[in-house]
């Protein structure tokens, strides 16, 4: 049931040392990917309290991507 008009709003929690660094590396290499994710940088995935994920969905996220 894909809807053409639907543009998902996705919240991302990225760990500073791994996933955030991978995202920078993708940028340096100019890989292209969809712009739907907005990233919140945390020092480590361990910092992510499950309350943040619940709050993300409560505030209307269609998806939450946690990158370690």
């Amino acid at each position, binding site marked *: 049931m894909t809807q053409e008009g639907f543009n998902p709003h996705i919240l991302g929690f990225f760990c500073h040392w791994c*996933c955030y660094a991978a995202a920078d590396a993708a940028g340096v290499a100019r890989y292209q990917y969809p712009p*739907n994710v907005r990233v919140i940088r945390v020092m480590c995935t361990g910092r992510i309290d499950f*309350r943040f994920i619940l709050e993300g*969905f*409560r505030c209307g996220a269609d*998806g939450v991507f946690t990158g370690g």
Partner: protein
Amino acid sequence: MAETCRQVFNVIGLNANRMALEWASAAEGPRFVELITKYVARIRELGPLGSLEGEAPKEVLERRLEAALKAAETPKVRTAYGNVAKKLHETRDFAVYTPERISQEVADRILPTFRQELLSHDVLLCLAEAKDQGKKTCSSGELMDLTGASSEELDKLLSALAKKGVIEGEAAGWSLKEPACAGHADRKGE
């Protein structure tokens, strides 16, 4: 953390596939791009929050998520959550703690308390919302539809809340007791 969220999502009727936990090291730019592209496509497939069949509608989800958040702030739930993490961390042996074993631990030791706290907060929220809409009381049946709790679970819950003086009434109609509720040590959500 991710497993706890998945199991809570099942309770409140949110499709667990909406949440992803992926690993990409600093050197894995290409892998990261693949993960993100696939994930965005998957979410586009699932459609907006609450639109998937089997998922509760958005407004219901929002209320239940708020209930889940309030439950997530209570020391009882957080201690259960912390103790499971402590057990996993101390053994350091991930051969023993396979993913299935971990979800088992979460299901046994965290979910029951989490579910109970969540439902009791959900009930209070339902009553509060009903009051806002000028509806004096809600019946147990209505509360069961709204919260998705089983009947004897709900009865146990309602009698506990009534005993604590937070709510009043009986099966036909329940409502929030007027004076500021004592039992719940709530923190402002901000």
